[in-house]
């Protein structure tokens, strides 16, 4: 799973990304994690950041 795709060499179709961004939970918070993901679609938008939003849902 990646969160970053460079602007050079069209990395998105090749999925040549990097996992630069992390969401860290302490042991007390970790049991409340329901799901997690990366919004890749946001990266494909016109003028998008080279990072895509990474997200988690906590109970």
């Amino acid at each position, binding site marked *: 799973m990646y969160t970053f795709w460079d602007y050079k060499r069209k990395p998105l179709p090749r999925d*040549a990304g*990097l*996992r*630069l*961004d*992390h*969401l*860290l*939970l*302490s*042991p*007390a*918070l970790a049991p*409340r994690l329901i799901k997690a993901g990366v*919004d890749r679609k*946001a990266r494909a938008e016109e003028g998008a*950041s080279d*990072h895509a*939003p*990474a*997200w*988690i849902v*906590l109970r």
Partner: protein
Amino acid sequence: MAVFRKPDVVALQELKSADDDFPASAIGKAGYGAVWRGQKTWNGVAILARNADPVLTRSELPGDRDDREGALYRSRRQRHHRHQASIFRTANPPARPKFDFKLAWLKRLKLHAAKFLKAGYPRGAGRRLQRRPDRARYLSDSVVGTRMR
């Protein structure tokens, strides 16, 4: 970003804006309170909280009185709960002495995190740290070294 899912908490990095240029009023109109630490160049981080005003509790890691960049540490208190969120980002220094600064900074982060973990608060952190990638072509890139892991 907020338009996708209306998250309760948003951690932003690479603000690319000085403190005075941070668009706090536009973010407020979108329903978010914010704390931020801008930098004129690449860095700068912020934490947004939906329908709440985050409280700044710390803007630098302890352990280096000369450190005026690279860390942001914010917490949010709401009702009787104490929610904490932090975001950290440091520059990708291509050369010494900044590279050494970053290594020292990571060590301070580790010490500080250990202290909080021991206290047992529920805690979430967003971070962006260059990890050594698997692809060989990046290995010559000085911003990602094995010692950054």
